[in-house]
């Protein structure tokens, strides 16, 4: 009862926070004056002057997509260089050597694509410079990329006929300056107040009460944790992420981080409704995501508190958070493509693992990544509207725009990338001897470890089952490439769909128009995600977590 009340408060705070943030973000991304414009306006304009950006110059979808790809390519090259050269660069108090090429490749892609899959252990393999100038910078930029694409897609879906998708460089600047930086500042300060370290000096040498010498790794932790949560990045300072007592010391820091994971993705739903000029559209998408989130949370909570009949399952969990808060975090971090953890997902009950995997496999659309969750869900909206829209006797339309062959082709292309990446990648990994070396355990749980890793990479989530050895050359390379697929094979077609829709006349709403708000549409959207998204993975899930659960019920364990 206590737990449920806590969940209810959490969801209410999340909804209110997202709603308020959307109200704040609307002028930021539509050229109006926002709350922080008086303070940040001059900074923004000064930045444009230095960078030579003409913020009012609109881009079509191709130019926008090209800007995204170019900018992210440069980000990748920069980060790769830092990781390879960190041994020779300053701000390396613990004298950490250069990262191996394949691991640096994997890590650079991982942070540029907002996945933050960590095949390394941060405190042991990264210098402070790499953490701050490398990872933290990409934490901001990859999140801002997702937000910019999200906003551009919204413009295409909702704008007037012939509208451009906006200017990528201006959208990036505004996302960082007006949204990510202020929010990170607030969250960072809160975390510091809760005891999270923020220092440029290296590890602390302490003598324990027993008189032993201990090395406690420290660094700019609070700043990185703030953006890792707000930007659905998930890459922690410490290898064990937010389960580490210095990364997430208290219940309050835990709740603040958990809220931050979902805050911007939720706000994007409402921003969509606001920019569409019909807030009900935003509520409908929020409701569809919310229903699936709560359903997933319910299963995880039930599975974890019930455990295996001997009380709650506490294996791999922090005593200070308990089963309920670990369940909430697990649902949030896999639904949003965050990937940070406050408990070890490997040790969750099989059914919880099932939900976590489904959250990622449907394409990270249950709130999903910042911006990415919304445009991912709009992909399903296009499919749902096309499938059921014909049933009202008209060519399917969404927000007055007809969904025709071009949009369906692009949507199917984007949609294919999930099963292709996850099933294809996992299938190869389950057959190749070189790949099988990464699996710690046999039987269905081993399959789950592989499947989880590939779902996480393609969904740009970044969390993992702990037993999975991600640092082999095969896995770093394969997962790295699939992170690219999961990110850009959706971004580019979605921008193309937005561009195609923007070119169309908006038909006026009549009684004959397919209604895309209200419970009926929410149900339809949830069913589409379930039947098209989740069912694709049903066969392999049956061999993984479902087989494990059914065997567990029969008294067999893996």
């Amino acid at each position, binding site marked *: 009862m206590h737990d449920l009340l806590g969940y209810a408060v959490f969801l209410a705070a999340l909804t209110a926070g997202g709603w308020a943030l959307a109200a704040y973000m609307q002028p930021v991304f539509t050229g109006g004056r926002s709350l922080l414009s008086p303070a940040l306006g001059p900074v923004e304009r000064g930045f444009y002057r230095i960078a030579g950006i003409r913020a009012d110059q609109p881009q079509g979808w191709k130019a926008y997509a090209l800007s995204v790809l170019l900018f992210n390519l440069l980000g990748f090259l920069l980060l790769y260089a830092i990781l390879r050269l960190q041994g020779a660069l300053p701000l390396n108090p613990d004298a950490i050597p250069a990262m191996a090429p394949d691991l640096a490749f994997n890590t650079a892609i991982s942070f540029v694509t907002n996945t933050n899959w960590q095949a390394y252990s941060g405190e042991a393999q990264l210098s402070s410079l790499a953490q701050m100038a490398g990872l933290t910078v990409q934490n901001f930029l990859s999140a801002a990329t997702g937000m910019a694409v999200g906003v551009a897609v919204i413009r295409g879906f909702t704008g007037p006929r012939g509208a451009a998708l906006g200017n990528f460089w201006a959208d990036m600047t505004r996302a960082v300056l007006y949204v990510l930086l202020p929010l990170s500042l607030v969250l960072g300060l809160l975390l510091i107040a809760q005891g999270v370290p923020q220092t440029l000096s290296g590890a602390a040498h302490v003598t324990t009460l027993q008189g032993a010498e201990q090395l406690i790794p420290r660094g700019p932790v609070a700043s990185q944790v703030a953006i890792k949560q707000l930007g659905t990045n998930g890459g922690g300072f410490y290898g064990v992420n937010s389960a580490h007592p210095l990364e997430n010391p208290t219940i309050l820091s835990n709740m603040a981080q958990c809220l931050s994971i979902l805050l911007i993705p939720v706000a994007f739903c409402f921003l969509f409704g606001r920019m569409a000029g019909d807030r009900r559209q935003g509520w409908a998408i929020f409701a569809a995501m919310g229903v699936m989130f709560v359903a997933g949370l319910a299963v995880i909570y039930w599975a974890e508190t019930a455990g295996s009949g001997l009380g709650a399952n506490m294996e791999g969990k922090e005593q200070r958070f308990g089963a309920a808060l670990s369940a909430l975090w697990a649902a949030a971090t896999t639904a949003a493509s965050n990937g940070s953890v406050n408990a070890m997902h490997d040790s969750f009950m099989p059914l919880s693992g099932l939900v976590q995997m489904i959250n990622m496999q449907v394409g990270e659309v249950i709130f999903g990544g910042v911006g990415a969750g919304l445009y991912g869900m709009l992909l399903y909206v296009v499919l749902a509207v096309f499938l059921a829209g014909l049933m009202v*006797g008209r060519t399917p339309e969404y927000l007055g725009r007809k969904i025709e062959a071009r949009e369906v082709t692009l949507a199917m292309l984007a949609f294919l990338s999930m099963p292709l990446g996850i099933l294809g990648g996992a299938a190869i990994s389950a057959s190749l001897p070189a790949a099988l070396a990464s699996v710690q355990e046999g039987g269905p749980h081993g399959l789950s470890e592989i499947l989880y890793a590939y779902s996480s990479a393609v969904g740009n989530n970044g969390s993992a089952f702990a037993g999975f050895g991600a640092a082999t050359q095969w896995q770093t390379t394969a997962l790295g490439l699939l992170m690219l697929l999961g990110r850009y094979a959706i971004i580019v077609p979605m921008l193309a769909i937005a561009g195609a829709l923007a070119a169309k006349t908006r038909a006026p709403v009549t009684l004959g128009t397919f209604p895309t708000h209200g419970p009926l549409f929410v149900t339809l959207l949830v069913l589409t995600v379930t039947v098209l998204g989740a069912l694709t993975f049903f066969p392999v899930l049956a061999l993984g977590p479902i087989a494990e659960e059914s065997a567990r019920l029969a008294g067999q364990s893996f």
Partner: protein
Amino acid sequence: MSSHPHSRPHTGLYATALRASVAKLHPRALLGNAVICVTAATAAVTTLLALRDLATGAPGAGVNLQIAFWLWVCVLFANFAEALAEGRGKARADSLRATKAETMVKLLAQEDDPAPRLVASGSLRAGQLVLVETGDLIPTDAEVIRGVASVDESAITGESAPVIRESGGDRSSVTGGTRIVSDSLVLRILAEPGKSFLDRMIAMVEGAERQKTPNEIALNILLAGLTLIFLLVTVTLQPFARYSGIAIPVVTLAALFVTLIPTTIGGLLSAIGIAGMDRLMRANVIAKSGRAVEAAGDVDTLLLDKTGTITFGNRMADAFLPAQGVIDRQLIRAALLASLSDDTPEGKSIVDLAHRLLPADDKPAETGAPIAFSAQTRLSGVDLPGRRLRKGAVDAVERFTGRHADPGLRARIDEIARSGGTPLLVAQDDTILGAIHLKDVIKPGVRDRFAELRAMGIRTVMITGDNPLTAAAIAAEAGVDDFLAEATPEMKLDFIRREQAGGRLVAMCGDGSNDAPALAQADVGVAMNSGTPAAKEAANLIDLDSDPTKLIEVVMVGKQLLISRGALTTFSIANDVAKYFAILPALFVAAFPGLAVLNVMNLHSPQSAILSAVIFNALIIVALIPLALRGVRYAPAGAAALLRRNLAIYGLGGLIAPFLGIKAIDLAVTALGLA
């Protein structure tokens, strides 16, 4: 509307369709349909594997052969659906082709050539002149340049009453295949043999020229994409299963694959399209392209001519209004006598109304010299012994009598004009007896029809040459949403362009040559078959009955076509849930006995489960053929209501039906000992 003897399906049709469905197994025919093509390829591989098993005596060969058999059946059923739909069109085409006999025609060198030359109809070229006389078949599409004749168009329209065709005006076009009943015409040939309206019609109904419509193309892409996804699902399942220590026979994987891909809608998609065109055909409307039928479902605004669509077209007497000091009966008797020899529809309606109002024993029997209407006097009437009765426009009668209507009558005359009616005055010598109220009579049921359209979200706009006052009154009475008064062809065109600029799709019908630009501009243009060649050329649909209200029916057929496609697609995809639950436990239960919990249907054995799913997959196609051909039931309603209803029937139904169906088949398969 009349029915055609050949359009009803009969046993011969089924036999032909069965033969055609085998012929459609040819790879080239299969390539047009991605889902069915993939199914056929899978069936072929499965057959080879099953035969190999049979030869080597491997276990399970019997069930594998059955699976292969049912995969082929699935392909054949899909072919059968298409062939049956095409067959109905072919039957109609054959009856049309019968009228296309090669005949000798009388070719004229010039319009008044006294000595026509006999040539074969096949040699005619556009622009040549021919003479057709009583009993002659009109060789091809032509324009009448001289003469008036009655023409039997029943071969094309099914309407047995002959129609008048004459030179000039809007009734100057004749269609190849029709026959002159009386008199003769000089025609200028418009279409070369093989390119006439009749030829196009035959090609259309046969489906030879059928091109995929935009929605159909988009749907095909979606289905191909889903097929690709399920291919990934089944192909990757093998390594996953091997990892788990399970070996899945390829035949079983093939069965899983075919049951998951959307074979139901894939198999019925083209049948739905052809059947939609056929429904239109049976409503006696010829679509020049499938695109127009689909666009009809999308229409937001209907432009309807007032005359003939909303009103009967003729003003009719509605009431007699006596002047001061005149008794009703005196006015009615005078109006009756003044109209007895008036042959115009207005005159007849005055006589009708007078007869209805007068008691049977009080009919005037006087006769006199009729005075016909003339443009100078604008009066008509009768000169009886000792008195002259006249009726006509208000100012004309006032001039005839030299008096003005009394103020009471004047007020009522103004009221008639305001209400959109036409007042006539009746006078005896120099006395104004009273007024007749002529009004446009709205066709019965029209109001309800418009209310239905409004509920569907379609706006109706009335087009009329009347002045705005009259137009407004009739618009209000008929219940249209808007009107365009004193409409000229340019105004119509402008109006359509404005609507389209606002994102609306517009449908209209017309018959005159001056309608052609508007018909071409409209998204859906229906030309009357009686109309001019220009109008028919510009339109994308032609109504053989020349009934302007048909536009509404066209919209309904278009919507029904789209709904049928959406409903069966939803049904097909929803089916997959049950198939997963039938096949997956069957595949894995040997390795993971716990997965028996997924066998919610409690199917007898893994073999029977897989076989039942495959059989269900094939049978559901044949079970849904009638629905595909008939179209999903459609009652006009708003989109929200339609969605709720169809989602409940085809979405929820699609989830539940296969659970029941597969279970039933499993019981049968087990009872028969097939697996």
